C-alpha cells in the first residue's frame, strides 16, 4: 500500500485516531509519519522506528540528500523514507549517516560473528596491520627513535614481501 500523504512511498505506519468517537485511519510512510510527529512505535516494528528516526534527521539536515549511491542510485532520502538500504554499497556511501543508527539499534558497530570463507579476513587483517605499522613507524621517526623504527620497517617489509 502506498502512503496516503505523499502517494510515493510504501506505507509502513498505520495510524488510528479517535476524535469525539469518530475513528479515522491513515497509512503513512515513515517520513510522512515522522513529519506528523508519530515516532514509529505505532506499528510496533523496528523498521518503522528506524525510518522515523532517519526521517527526523532529514528534517534537520538536508545536505546529505543530494548524494546518490553509485551502485544502486539510492539517495539517503530514499533510505530514510523506507528504513531500507538500497544495496551493499550504500553502507559505504552513507556510512557517516548510517553508523549512528546502527549503533542505536544494535548497541554496537563492530561485527563479531562469522566471516565468509577465510581469505577475505586474512587480507583485511594484513592491510590493517600494515597501515597500523606504518602509522607507528611515522611516529617513531618523528620521535627520533631510529632503532625501534628500523625494526618496524623490517616488519613491514616482511609482511609486504609475504603478499
Amino acid at each position, binding site marked *: 500500500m502506498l502512503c496516503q500523504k505523499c502517494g510515493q512511498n510504501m506505507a509502513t505506519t498505520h495510524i488510528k485516531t479517535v476524535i469525539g468517537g469518530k475513528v479515522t485511519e491513515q497509512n503513512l510512510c515513515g517520513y510522512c509519519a515522522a513529519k506528523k510527529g508519530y515516532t514509529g512505535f505505532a506499528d510496533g516494528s523496528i523498521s518503522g522506528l*528506524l525510518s522515523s528516526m532517519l526521517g527526523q534527521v532529514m528534517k534537520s539536515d538536508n545536505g546529505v540528500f543530494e548524494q546518490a549511491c553509485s551502485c544502486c542510485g539510492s539517495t539517503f532520502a530514499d533510505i530514510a523514507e523506507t528504513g531500507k538500504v538500497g544495496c*551493499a554499497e550504500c553502507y559505504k556511501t552513507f556510512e557517516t549517516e548510517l553508523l549512528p543508527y*546502527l549503533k542505536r539499534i544494535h548497541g554496537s558497530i563492530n561485527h*563479531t*560473528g562469522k566471516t565468509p570463507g577465510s581469505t577475505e579476513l586474512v587480507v583485511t587483517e594484513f592491510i590493517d596491520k600494515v597501515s597500523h605499522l606504518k602509522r607507528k613507524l611515522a611516529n617513531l621517526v618523528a620521535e627520533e627513535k631510529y632503532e625501534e623504527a628500523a625494526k618496524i620497517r623490517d616488519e613491514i617489509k616482511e609482511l609486504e614481501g609475504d603478499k
Partner: protein
Amino acid sequence: MSCWYKDYDALGGIVISSRIRLARNLSNMPFPRRMDAQMLRTLKERVKVAVDKMQDKVMLKFIEMNDIPENEIKAMVERHVISPDFANSCRDRAIALSNDENISIMIGEEDHIRIQVISAGNSLDKAYEIADMIDVALNESLGFAFDSKLGYLTECPTNIGTGLRASLMLHLPVCESRGEINMISDAASKIGLTVRGMYGEGSKASASFYQISNQITLGISEKNAIENLKVIAQQIVEREKSARADIDKLNLMDTVFRSLGALKYARIMSSDEFTKHISMIKLGVDEGIIENNNIKPVELLISAQPYMLMKNHIAITPLERDEARATMIRGLL
C-alpha cells in the same frame, strides 16, 4: 527426515520448535526492493546454479512461486515454510525447498536470500549447524556481501552483522492465563529479545503459542546470540513449569477434558475456538492427563489452519471451513 510438525518424539514439551534464519545478499546487485525484472531473473539463475552445486550436501528443489496456487502459498505460511512477507510479495520470486520442507531458501524476499531451517523441539544448535553448512556452500558460488566491520550487509539495518534470527516457539498456556506474557515480553526486550505471536511480526499470539527470538545482530556472535536465547527461553520454560505445578489438578483435568470433548463432538469449529482447545489438549498431553498416544496436538494445530484445510477440503465459505475443520478433527480424534 519427517517434517518438523510430524517429528512426534521431539514435539512433546514446552519448546515446540526451533528456527534459524540467515539473511544474505549478493554483493554486486541492488537489494530486492530496487531490483528490476531482469536483475531478479539473474538472481534466481545464480542461486539455482549454486543450489544445484551443493546437491551432494543437501538436496533442495527449486520452485518458481508463480507455479504455486495462491491458497497453497498461504498454506506454506501456515506450515512456517515461508514468511508472511514473502507470501505477500512472492510474484516472480522463487524458493529452494527440501523434501521434508524443514529447509527453505527464499529468493528475493527482503534480502536476496533467506536461509531457513526449522526443527522440532529444543534444537537450535542442530538447526544452526545445517543453516551454517548451507551458508558456507552457497557463499562459495555466490560470494555474499560482507564488510569486515559491519558483517553481512542486509536490506534492513536491523539484520546487519550476523543476519541471524534464531527463534523458539513456546507453548505457555499457564503463564498466559496468569497474565504474565507482557511481563515476560518486557523483560525479554530489555536484553535484546522479542516475544511475538506464532506467525511472527504483527501476528496475534494464537492460544498461548509464542515465538521468542533475538533482535540484535551486530556486535554479537551467532553462538552468543543463540546461547542467550536458549538461556532466557529456559527461564521462561521453568516459569511455565512451576506455574503448571501450582494448578489444581482437578480443575486442570476438567478444562483439558472439556476441550477434548468439544473437539471430539463439535460440528462447527472456528479457528479461534480451535486454537484455544488445542492449546489445552497440548497441555493435557504434556502433563500426562491425556494418555492417548494417537493425539498429536502440534500436527493438529498446523493441519487445522484455514488454508491447510482448504487444501484437502473444498470449503468456500468460512462456515463450510469451520465445518470441515470440525469434521477433520473428529476424524483424527
